[in-house]
Every structure is written in C-alpha cells, then in structure tokens.
C-alpha cells in the first residue's frame, strides 16, 4: 500500500514558516495516496515561483519548467505518455498571468491533467508584486497606488470555456483539498483546482483569518456540481463578492478527454510504441506518394 512516506524525500522546503504551500504539500501527498497512485505513476510538472518548487520537495517524477509554461510542457508529456497521471502545480502569477493563454486553451481542450494553482494573490518568489488575482487596490511595489485591474476570475473563465472539472481548495483544509486532488487525479480531462493559499510574507491582508471568514464549502449548501449554470453562479461569487466557495464547483465525466480522441494513442502510449509502427516495407508508401 502506498503511503505518504512514499512521496517524501530528504529535502526541507524553503517556504516561509506559516506559508500556505505547506498545507498544499501535505494535501498533495495525501491526495495521491487516496487516489491509490505511486510516485512512479505520476508526473508533476511545475512552473517557477515559491509554490512551483513543490516537486523539489517530494519523491515523485518532476519537471520544474518555466514561469508560465508548465501546462504546455505537461500537455506534451501527457500526449506522449497518457498512461501516466499528470499534475501541474504552479502559482497564480505563473498560471493566470504569464501562462494565461495555456490555461485558457487547456480548459477548452479538456486535456487529461490536473492543474493546481497555488493562488496566493501575489508574486511570492519575486518578493511581492501584485498578481492577476490581486484585489482592486492591493498595494505592492509594482502597484504603489493599488492594483487597478479587476481580479481575474479563474473558475468562471474555466467553466465558460468548457472545462469539465472545476474546483477550489483552501490550503488550511488539508483533507478537503486532498479529497479534491484524489478526485481530480482520476477525472477524465482537464481539472482545475484553484487553491486559496495565504502568503504570510507578501500578502498580509489576506491572512488566515481573512480567508476563514469568507470561505465556505459548496457541498454544505447543497450545490449540485453537475449543474453548469449553478456552477457559473458560484464561480462568479469570488473574486468580487465576500464569500469564497470551495469544493468541487463543476464536474462532468461525459466529455471525452483530448487524448482519448487521438487515433495514434489507441495503440497505447506513444512512448511504449516502437519507433516504427509498421513493417519497413510499408514505409515505402511514403516515398511512392511523391511519384
């Protein structure tokens, strides 16, 4: 039986004491265990940022890539080896700012991977600039008069573009988040998990209490995650309003994932197929086509 210890390595995280990433770290391990997956079966692709160091601190297949590009790398990986479970872990600057285009298109593509965004509403690793999800008026060194742009609404964006699994977690609710992760790891297609993650160093306004006061679980209010209209309404509650819905907001298993529909993958993962999928003689067809 796989346990949390299987995902543990000897490296100590360099996050600030109290950082929300610790909770996500634990939730990931527990979620993988709940999902019954071994380190060998998972590929964790990260971007660049505080939270993107996640795979340095775990025993797991890891690809720590570029700021904003984790989804693209992960998509290529998944298409080459769909037998593996792929999870992307990155920050809000990474996932929604620099990587916004990949987010948008991954959602409508329904590519089979989990996209976990550590949304601390700020740039942590570069020491505190406002991010696409920062609230209006948030004062940072790049927004000395306060952020002027309406915060991006990731859940609404994903649902409006056809995403099939859209959830929000809270780093302090480790078990709740682990449950979502476990579900997402077996979802058919693209699964967004936007995680409320306090950054104790650079986003002191949104501290633990701030979140606790606002967060609620949609399941406690009888939300039906298969109802897309209801999901969109929940999604639009935050940012904007004063309540933050968490849990699985929208989900359908009816839509085929991208990789399911690719003909060449019917014969198994590309990486397991021989370099030549047909006898040599047949490759002469390619030549004859040009006669």
């Amino acid at each position, binding site marked *: 039986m796989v346990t949390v210890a299987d995902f543990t390595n000897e490296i100590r995280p360099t996050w600030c004491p109290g950082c929300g990433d610790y909770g996500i770290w634990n939730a990931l391990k527990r979620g993988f265990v709940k999902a019954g997956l071994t380190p*060998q079966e998972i590929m964790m692709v990260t971007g660049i940022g505080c939270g993107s160091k996640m*795979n340095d601190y775990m025993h797991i*297949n890891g690809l720590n890539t570029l700021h904003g590009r984790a989804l*693209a*790398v992960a998509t*290529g990986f998944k298409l080459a*080896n769909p037998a*593996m479970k792929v999870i992307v872990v990155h920050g809000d600057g990474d996932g929604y700012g620099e990587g916004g285009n990949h987010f948008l298109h991954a959602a409508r593509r329904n590519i089979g991977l989990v996209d976990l965004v550590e949304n601390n509403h700020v740039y942590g690793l570069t020491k505190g600039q406002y991010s696409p999800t920062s609230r209006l008026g948030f004062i940072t060194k790049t927004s000395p008069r306060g952020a002027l742009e309406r915060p991006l609404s990731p859940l609404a964006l994903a649902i409006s573009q056809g995403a099939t699994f859209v959830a929000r977690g809270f780093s302090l609710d480790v078990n709740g988040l682990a449950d979502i992760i476990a579900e997402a790891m077996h979802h058919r297609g693209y699964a967004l998990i936007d995680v409320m993650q306090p950054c104790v160093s650079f986003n002191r306004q949104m501290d633990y209490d701030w979140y606790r006061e606002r967060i609620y679980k949609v399941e406690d209010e009888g939300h039906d995650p298969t109802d897309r209209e209801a999901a969109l309404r929940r999604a639009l509650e935050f940012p904007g309003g004063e309540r933050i819905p968490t849990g699985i907001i929208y989900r359908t298993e009816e839509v085929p994932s991208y990789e399911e529909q690719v003909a060449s993958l019917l014969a198994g993962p590309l990486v397991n*197929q021989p*370099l030549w999928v047909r006898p040599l003689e047949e490759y002469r067809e390619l030549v004859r086509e040009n006669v």
Partner: protein
Amino acid sequence: MPNIDISLRIGGEAGQGVESSGAGFATALTRGGLFVAAVPDYYSRIRGGHNFFTIRVSDEPVRATREAVHLLIALDGETVRRHVDRLVPGGVIIADEGLAFDPALLEGKDVRLFSLPLIKIAEELGSRVMVNTGALAAAATAMGFDLEHILSVIADNFGAKGGAIVEANRRVALATADALRERYNLALPWRVPARPAPPRLTLDANRAFAMGAIMGGCKFMAGYPMTPATSILEYMAGHADRWGLVVKHAEDEIAAVNMCIGAAHAGVRAMTATSGGGFDLMVEGISLAAMIEVPLVIYLAQRPGPSTGMATRTAQSDLLMALHAGHGEFPRIVLAPHTPEEAFVCGYRAFNLAEMYQCLVIVISDHYNATSLFTCDPASFDPARVEIDRGKLLTAEALEAMEVYHRYANTPDGISPRALPGSSPKAVYLSTSDEHLENGHITEDPQVATMMARKRLRKLDGARGKMRPPFRFGPAEAECTLVSWGSPFGSVYEAMETLNAQGYPTNMVHFVDVWPFPHEAAQEALGGAKRIVSVENNATGQFAFMLHAYGGIEVQEQILKFDGRGFTPDYVLAHLERS
C-alpha cells in the same frame, strides 16, 4: 551537356491557381521521365498581386531554374508585361485569345504568341476553372509532351470520387491541344517528349524532411502555422493516424515548443517547425531544453525579416540567430540541408544527434527549399537507408543493473544516461530548469554549477566529431572557389560548371553541417584556395562571418542577395567578376 534544357513559366494573379498548375505540370513532367527544377514566386496575399511559377525541364537532373524562359503561359496581361523580356529568341507566349495586354510589348521582338480560346473551351467542355488545364495542355502540346501525364496528375488530385471532373478536364485538354495544332505551326525547336523511365519523385525539401522525420521515428509534433514551415505541420497532421504520430496545432509557438519538450522528456522523438517570428517565441523553451537536456528538433524555415518581412519570400538571414538563440551557454547543433535528399537525411539524422547529445538540433532551411520542387530518385529516400541511434537511452536491464540512478550524472563525454520517467521506481527523478545536482535536485553550489556547465558544454566536443566536412565539387586546383550553405547550392553548382566550361577553373565548397563549426575540415577544404567567393541569400554575409570567426578563413568577395528571391546560376555568374 543535357539534350533538353527548357524553361517554362506560368504567371497570373493570386487565386488563379498558378502554383497548383505549376506543381501539377512539374509532377507530370517527372512522370514523363524528365527532370525538373520548379520554383514558385508568389505574394503573401490571397488574391491579386502577380504570382508566377518557373519550371525548368531537362533529360538530366537539374537543381536550379534559369532566368531565360522558352515558354510563357500568361493567365493575365501582367504576366506578358513582366516576363516578355525574359523570353529567349523565338520564345512563345500561350494566352487566351481574349487576354488584354499592350500589343506594343511584343513589337520588334522575336516572340510568338499562341492565342487560344482557352476560356471558351473550358466553359464549353468543362468549367471555367479548367482554363489552366487547357493552358498546360497547350504548353505540353507545343513541346511535344504527352498529355496523359498531365491528366494523370489531375486524376490523382481528384481521387476516386472525381471521375466526372477528370473526364471534363480531359475533354478540355484535348480540345485545347487540337485548337493549338489547328491554328499554329508547332515547329518549335524545344521538344520535350515523354520517355520511359523508372518512377521518380517530385519533391520539396519540407516534405522530404517530414518524410525523413517519420521514418526516423518522430512520434510527436506540435506547431503553429507559419509560412514557409506550415507544410510540415500539415504533412505530419495528414500522416498522423497511419504512422502513429500525435500532431498538435497548438495555441501559439510557445506552447508548441514546450509541448515538444514535454513529449521529448517523456521519451518520444519530438519536433516543431516554424519561421523566424515563431522561432523567436520558442527561444525561452530552447534554453529550458538545454538545461534539462532533452533532445529537441526544430525546423527553422527562413524568410526575409526583420519581423513579418516578406512572408512568402526566401532568405538565409537567421543563421547567427540560430547559433545564439537562448540565454546562457549550452551546446546545440545546426544543419542546413540544400536538397530534398539532404533534407530527408536531416529528418532522421537530426533526431539521432539530438538523442545522442541530448541537445537541440536546428535544421535551418528556407522558403526556397520549402517550396521548390525537384525530380528525385526514390532510392535516396528508401526507408532501409534510415539509421537510428538513440544515444544513451537506458534499457530496463541497464537501469536495473545500476546501483542508483542519477539523471544528470557527470560523465567524461558530458552525456548522462537517460532513463524515462515512469519506466521504473528507480527512475523517479526531478528535472529542473534551475541549476541542479547530478540527481536533478536544485542547487546553487558554485562548484557544482561550474561542473554542470562544463558537463553540458563538453557535449559539444563529441558533437563536433559528428559534423561532416563540407561537400567539395569541381577541380582540385582552381582559380576561384565558391562557398555556399543551404539552398543556393543548385545555382552555385551550375555556375561553377559553367565557369569551368568557359575555361575559368572553379571549384565549390558547400556546407551542410554548420554547427559545431567543422573548422578543421573547413581549413582543409579552403585553406589553399586562391580566391574565395561566398554566395548567400542575406545582406550581411553571415556564413562568411562564420568562416572568418570560427574557421580563420577569409572570403575575398561576397555575392549577397537579399531581395527575397532565390538565386539562379545566371545571377551568380552575372555577379562574379572574372578577373
């Protein structure tokens, strides 16, 4: 000297089917046992402008087109205006009898006009769009070439379902040919009869490269359309299902290159293809690939810049960029195929080199290569010729035999044995764009950083050993040595032949493997040259600079062309001073 050497040009507006007609005719000529070199010239627009397509046909292999034209098919008046002066004495224009152009254009010129009811016949016996079929049939008839080959190409294009259309085309072709014979005395000196011959290919370098890539085991391509690289993406997409490929038209080039990196990291041979602007966007990915040491192949099809430049024109102006793209210092390999045959070899060789050195291989091509058609021998493309070398890819057994596995082990040749993620509990490792330890985890240790930088750069030494010397042609002793790389090959080669025939001893040194620069081989080939003249499709002489900077070789003269059009032998000859 060939017995046949005839040039034909078809011209008209964008939207009139100049290119497809030209390509069809080139294929027909090849099927008729002849050799062609065919170069399109078209605007980056959907309608209007002036497009033309030049076909040179011979009974021997040809690798360039010429400036002079024997037969001109004018689909519009502009074609007459632009090209009448290119006609050889006695040259022929084929046009619809209703075509409007200034008759003064022909005055006093030794030019014949074959004026035919092309539109009328097409409309009566088929449909208006078949006017080009009629024109080609007329041209074929004028040259004594069998119409059946043209009709066979049309039949292939429409496939099984197009029976009625094929029949209509046949009627139009035959009727137009009859009309021509009826109206004009066809005692032209330029006869191109079809002849029996083994099957040959009509091929451009893009397609040849893509074919080579498939035979080389490329399994993944992600790309974004960009002229002149688009045809590779489309070819791969069209061949995906049968040949076990996954081909993704991505949301942008950044996604494309990073998808390739992901797929390559998973363990499959992966590539992308683009042009300058798209390549620019891939630069950060290039640097990532270098750090995590994944094998990556990028086909870079050049066109004139800066920026959008001239999208459907040719240039060789991105060589130094290809050499230096990406921040930080790391090894890469650059190959510049000059023919469809070589592009095919690049198709699999690039993947071998990429996997052997776990590095980036850029295949640098251009619009000329991408769109020009040449008659080729199928034997050059035989799958049995394809060699595969996956480098230090660990087998399951080799991995099991290791005590611990370190993905980035420091080795004498700088290459670390590669185990694929997911393949074994032992091969659970991290790859990171940060500097890292041998086990892959992040470090900032100064000694390790120095060691890792050296390890990565050391791969270049091995790769240099795999670079082939330049190709050498012509007499060992010569007054003049022409140097070239990439697509100008055919024109330079023919210029050299002409110069020798004219009694000016000239030889030629042509580079395909350009980086790591094969400096010893370059020295050997060029060290003793009396007069070195370089030929390049750019404004600043980038390869001549490389010869100087990396080879210690000084070029005396440069023939540079940067108007967006490719070379011809005539151009090279006209610009070479014969002292």
